[in-house]
């Protein structure tokens, strides 16, 4: 009973943060800011979902798969975000006009 409530709570929290991530993807101005929403909220939200499934299922094959899914998401999401951000900057996708400082541009303008 308590396990079910706890598991469902984690699943709903996960869905809520996934929703915020998607909302951020729509509302924030440029690639880099959108990546922030996409990596943080969606990683946390999906981890919450999977953890809720683990609590509902307990220590069986299904639950363990959910746990391993969390580990792989935590490893893969930041790396993917880094790769996309770097590639975007190198192919000269401009930052939004609200940007206050760009140290990367300053150090890399001579190359290429």
């Amino acid at each position: 009973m308590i396990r079910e409530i706890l598991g469902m709570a984690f699943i709903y929290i996960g869905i809520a943060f996934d929703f915020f991530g998607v909302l951020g993807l729509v509302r924030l101005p440029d690639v880099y800011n959108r990546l922030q929403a996409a990596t943080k909220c969606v990683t946390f939200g999906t981890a919450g979902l999977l953890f809720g499934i683990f609590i509902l299922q307990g220590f069986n094959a299904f639950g363990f798969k959910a746990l391993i899914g969390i580990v792989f998401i935590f490893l893969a999401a930041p790396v993917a975000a880094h790769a996309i951000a770097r590639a975007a900057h190198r192919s000269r996708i401009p930052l939004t006009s609200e940007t206050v400082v760009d140290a990367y541009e300053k150090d890399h303008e001579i190359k290429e």
Partner: protein
Amino acid sequence: MQIKTRSRITVFILSFLVWIALTSVRDPQELVAGFVVSVLVALIAGHFFITTEKSKHFLHRMAAAILYFFKFLWEMVKANFHVAYLVIHPNVPIRPGIVKIKTRLTKETAITVLTNSITLTPGTLTVDINPEKKEIYVHWIDVKFKDVKMATKTIGGKFESRLMEVFE
């Protein structure tokens, strides 16, 4: 024991554990297949896992790693509420920019973990690393300090000392 051998054995144990977790343990066929695959993985790619000797004791490093994990989890929860607040707010009050921070860490693994942690915590996202100068370029959604020193303290300072204990 040589470093390469120890690294291979560690990789074998880890991959075999992951295999057991992914399949059900009851079937002996699955176990044999997992054993063979783990041995192959350990022989082909095992020597990349541990490359240098660490100065601290294993248990000390594990304790530091667990402490680091909980600190990281807490920072990550904060980060999520921060981004959620920015997204819900009607004006989207952001002040984005890319700043440069320096790191004292020397090991490659440590820097990788640091940059991944930076990506997953408050309003920051790693764009690129300069391994020679030990500089990390970070996209910050709400820039508070533009100079290298203060930015380093605010973004990387929380994790760095703990990671020193785990990896160096």
